[in-house]
């Protein structure tokens, strides 16, 4: 078991691959994903400081990543938040709620094996299909809502980064000038690898580079960013009604992931609290 230093004898072996969870490829993503839930097997969670940074202890065992690396984070505040995730699990460990732990695991293991350039490219590519740039023409009420809610944040980004972005009702999306992309590429290059993983995560959640930068730059809150990202859903909900088990469920999940990603970026970027050795690009 990958998260225990010495696997205790009494814990069960992981279920065989054909136990209904689908095909497990040799280096596919399925092989990387831990089970959704398992019983809490530790009493105490604590933090300690090692050579590379801060470590999480579950009783006397040191937490490890899915690829069996020692779980080390560069920021004490981040370690505390991760420890809190582990300590707040009750009878079962619900991995799908432990977003900070997941982000740290991704940063440490880099299972997709992406380098800084690839991460930045993936992030900036989103600009071509940025949610806030993609406008509808119908129904007029929605078009108006998009104009009122999204124009200000696009304007903010254009001013803040001194770029041209614009918006479009065309199916091809907005035409983003190369200089705009270059500006964002060089801005993102100023972040370290960990923070970049977080930024790219937030972008894929919100489906918008502009909303993500607005959030990272503390121009809007997580709740606002999520609302703006889900503007069309919110519009439809107001028109047709809310379905708690779907709408609220998605809303809470998106808020949780976006909040985790944002916090992760900020905690990995603070120079005063960060162990730079760990953040090597």
């Amino acid at each position, binding site marked *: 078991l990958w998260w225990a230093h010495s696997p205790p004898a009494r814990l069960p072996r992981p279920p065989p691959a054909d136990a209904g969870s689908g095909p497990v490829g040799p280096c596919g993503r399925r092989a990387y994903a831990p089970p959704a839930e398992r019983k809490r097997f530790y009493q105490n969670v604590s*933090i300690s400081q090692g050579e590379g940074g801060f470590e999480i202890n579950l009783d006397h065992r040191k937490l490890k990543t899915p690829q069996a690396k020692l779980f080390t984070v560069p920021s004490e505040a981040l370690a505390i938040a991760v420890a809190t995730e582990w300590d707040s699990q009750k009878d079962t460990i619900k991995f799908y709620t432990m977003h900070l732990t997941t982000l740290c695991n991704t940063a440490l293991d880099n299972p997709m094996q992406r380098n800084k350039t690839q991460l930045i490219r993936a992030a900036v590519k989103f600009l071509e299909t940025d949610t806030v740039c993609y406008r509808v023409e119908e129904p007029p009420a929605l078009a108006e809502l998009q104009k009122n809610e999204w124009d200000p944040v696009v304007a903010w980004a254009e001013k803040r980064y001194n770029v041209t972005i614009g918006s479009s009702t065309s199916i091809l999306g907005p035409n983003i000038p190369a200089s705009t992309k270059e500006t964002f590429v060089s801005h993102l290059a100023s972040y370290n690898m960990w923070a970049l993983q977080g930024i790219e995560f937030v972008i894929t959640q919100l489906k918008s580079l502009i909303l993500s930068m607005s959030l990272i730059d503390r121009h*809007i809150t997580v709740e606002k960013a999520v609302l703006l990202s889900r503007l069309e859903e919110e519009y439809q909900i107001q028109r047709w009604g809310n379905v708690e*088990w779907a709408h609220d469920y998605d809303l809470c999940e998106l808020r*949780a992931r976006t909040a985790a990603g944002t916090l992760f970026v900020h905690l990995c970027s603070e120079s005063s609290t960060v162990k730079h050795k760990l953040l090597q690009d």
Partner: protein
Amino acid sequence: MAALGTPLRTLRALLRELRHAAGRSYRDSPAYRHVLAAFRAHRVTSEKLCRAQQELHFQAATYLCLLRSVREHEALHREYHGRGERPPPEGAGL
């Protein structure tokens, strides 16, 4: 800077969420102590407009959003998605 409300309100809500997450010994939990210490160090409960304080407040509000959303998401999951599939005999008997 984002519209956040007062730092005191955020701090109170955040401590409440941490109490909920930690259980009995919340006051001793690292997170509770860290948040209190950070707010004290920056005196965020006053009305000064220092940039470091604003950053801390934003971070606290973000963490509050995380804890709250995870709790709400889990509650919804338990309510609507926790039961899993019925076994075939039970399903057939519906």
